[in-house]
C-alpha cells in the first residue's frame, strides 16, 4: 500500500538495463545464434535448426557430465547447508569471540579461486602434500590423480572448505536477528533445544537459507576454476563437470554449434532448478 507511482523511476533504471543488455543479453543472443547454425570455419554458416539441441540431448557424453554435475552440486549442498547451520548455531552470539569467529569464517572466501585449486592440488598430493601424505601414512591408499573416488573426495572436501563459510555467515546473520523474547518464551513453554531449533531458529533463518541454497546451487553448478586447477576433470573423465566439458567442446574441439546448444541447455537447467528451489522454499510464506 501507499506505493508511489512515479514514471521517472524508469529513467534511472535505463543505464542498468543498457549495461545488462551489453553484458548478458547480447552475448546470450550470440550463443543462440551459434546454436542454430553449422560452421565449417572461415565464417561460413549454415542454418541447422534444432539439430544441435537434439544431438546434445541424446549425447551420452552430455548425460554423463550433467549427471556428474548434479551429483557434485547435490552432495555439496547436502553437506554445506546443514554444516553451515550447525557451525552458525555453535558460534558465540556476544563478546569478543564473535569478531574472531567472523574473521576466521570469512578467510576462505577471500582467497582467489585459482589459488584455492592450486593450494588443494599441492595439499592433497600423495607424496608430499600434508593431506595426501597423512592419509597414506594412516594406511589409506589415497591418490586423487589416479583414483576417481579419491578425486571426488578431494573435490568435495575442497568445496566444503571453501564455501561452507558463506552458509555460516548468512545463517549467523539470520540467527542473531532473532529477538531474545523468542528464546525466553520458548523456555517458558518448556520447549526442548530441538523444538527451539525447529520452531524458532529454522523458521527465522528461512529467508537467509533460501538465499544461501540458491547462491550455492548456482555457484556450484557453474564451478570451473577450482576443479580445472585441481584435477583438470580427471582421472579420465571422472570429475569432468558440465562446465569443464563445455570448455573442452567449445575451445578444445572448437565445435561452436554443439557448445552453444549445450550452453543454452546448461543455462535452462540452472534456471529450472533455481525456480524449483525458490518456489519450494518460499511456498509457505504467503497465506
Amino acid at each position, binding site marked *: *500500500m*501507499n*506505493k*508511489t*507511482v512515479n514514471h521517472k523511476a524508469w529513467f534511472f533504471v535505463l543505464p542498468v538495463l543498457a549495461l545488462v543488455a551489453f553484458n548478458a543479453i547480447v552475448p546470450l543472443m550470440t550463443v543462440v545464434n551459434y546454436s542454430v547454425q553449422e560452421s565449417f570455419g572461415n565464417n561460413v554458416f549454415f542454418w541447422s535448426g534444432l539439430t544441435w539441441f537434439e544431438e546434445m540431448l541424446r549425447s551420452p557424453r552430455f548425460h554423463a557430465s550433467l549427471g556428474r554435475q548434479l551429483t557434485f552440486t547435490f552432495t555439496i549442498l547436502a553437506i554445506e547447508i546443514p554444516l553451515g547451520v550447525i557451525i552458525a548455531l555453535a558460534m558465540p552470539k556476544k563478546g569478543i569471540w564473535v569478531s574472531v569467529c567472523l574473521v576466521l569464517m570469512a578467510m576462505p572466501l577471500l582467497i582467489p579461486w585459482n589459488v584455492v585449486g592450486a593450494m588443494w592440488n599441492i595439499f592433497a598430493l600423495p607424496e608430499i602434500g600434508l593431506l595426501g601424505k597423512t592419509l597414506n601414512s594412516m594406511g589409506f591408499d589415497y591418490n586423487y590423480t589416479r583414483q576417481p573416488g579419491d578425486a571426488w573426495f578431494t573435490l568435495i572436501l575442497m568445496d566444503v572448505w571453501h564455501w561452507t563459510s558463506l552458509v555460516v555467515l548468512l545463517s549467523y546473520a539470520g540467527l542473531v536477528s532473532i529477538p531474545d523474547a523468542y528464546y525466553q518464551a520458548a523456555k517458558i513453554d518448556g520447549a526442548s533445544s530441538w523444538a527451539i531449533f525447529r520452531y524458532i531458529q529454522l523458521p527465522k533463518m528461512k529467508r537467509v537459507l533460501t538465499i544461501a541454497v540458491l547462491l550455492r546451487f548456482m555457484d556450484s553448478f557453474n564451478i570451473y576454476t577450482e576443479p580445472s586447477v585441481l584435477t583438470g576433470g580427471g582421472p579420465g573423465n571422472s570429475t569432468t563437470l558440465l562446465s569443464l566439458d563445455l570448455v573442452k567442446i567449445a575451445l578444445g574441439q572448437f565445435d561452436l554449434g554443439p557448445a552453444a546448444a549445450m550452453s543454452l541447455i546448461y543455462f535452462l537447467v540452472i534456471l529450472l532448478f533455481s525456480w524449483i528451489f525458490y518456489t519450494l522454499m518460499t511456498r509457505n510464506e504467503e497465506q
Partner: protein
Amino acid sequence: MTLELKHVGKTLDGDVHIHPTDLVLEPGRFNILLGTTLAGKTTLMQLMAGLEKPTSGEIWFNGRNVTGERVQKRNVSMVYQQFINYPNMSVFENIASPLRVARMAEADIRKRVEEMAGLMKISAMLDRRPSELSGGQQQRTAMARALVKDSDLILLDEPLANLDFKLREELRDEMPRIIAERNCVVVYATTEPSEALLLGGHTAALYEGRVVDYGPTSEIYCQPADLTSAKVFSEPPINIAGVRKSGDQIVLNENVSWPASSALADGEYTIGIRPHHVSPVRTHESDVGITGTVHVAELSGSESMIHFDAYGDSWVSLSHGVHPFDTGEETTLFVDVSNCFYFDPAGRLVSSSDSAGVN
C-alpha cells in the same frame, strides 16, 4: 497563508485511500486530523506535503496551485511517530541540518539552533548524540529540527505516540505555546480524542479515508455532524442505542422512557451518549435509570469505568470516584439524557443536548 485542498482524492489500484476532500487549513492554530489507524491520516498528510500525488483534485498554497510540485521545492517539515534523527550527528548538528542545506551563515545557525533548543528544553544536550538521549528528548530534537527552519507547512504525524505517558502529557502541554508564534500551517495527526481536545484548534474527523466532520475542535466534539463523527471523537467509545419518539416521549423500551422535545419529529432515532454522562449515581433530576448486568468494572483510583450490558446493548460508564461492582452484578446506572445526541436513520445529527431542551 493557507493550505487549501480542493476535491483532493487518492485512489490506488482501484482502492480508494482518500475520498475527494475539501479542506481549508489556516496558520496559527492546530489543524488536527483525528481518526483510528488506517483512517487515512498519514496518506492525507503525504498528499499535503507533496510526497504523494493526488489522483484527483488540486492543492493550493497561498493562492498558488502546488499540485504535483516536488516536496523539495516546497517548504515543508515533517515529524514522525518514530524518532527520526541523524544518528552520527550531535543534537546541535541535527537541529542545524535544515539550515545548513539552506546555506545560512554560521553565526545565524548557532543563534537559531540555541533559540530552538531553549524552546524545546534540550539546551543542555546539544553536544550529545541522539542515542544518548531519552525517547522524549529524541522526539524534542526531531521536532526542533522540523521547526527551526521557517517552514510554510509543518506536519506532525502522531509525534507523541511512542512516548511514555507522562512525557506525552508534558509535551502536549507545551506544544500549543511552541506553535503559537509561528506563521505557518500546522497539521497534527492523532488517534486520541482527548489529545485533539487539549490541543484545540480545528479538527477533521477521519473515517475510512473520508473527512466526516470538520470545524473548531470543541464544536465538533459538542455537535458532531453525524454518528460516525461522534464515534471517531469518543474515547472510551460512545454508547449507542435505538429509540423511538412518539408523542411527548422518547422510548428506549417498555421500561425506560423520558420526555421528548417538541422539536423532534415522531419516528426512529439512534441515540449517542458519552460514557461520562452515564453514572452509577444520580446527578440530575432528569437522569434516567437503566438496569443491566455489570461485565467488568475498572477502577483507576480516581475514576470508575463500568462496562455493562443492558437491553441487549453494551454500555460504558465513566465517572469520578471509586464505584466497585462485581462481575455479573445487576445494577442501575443513570443516564444524563439532557446530554444526548439524536441521530436520524441516515446517521445525521438532528438534535443534541443544547437544542433538544429536554430539561
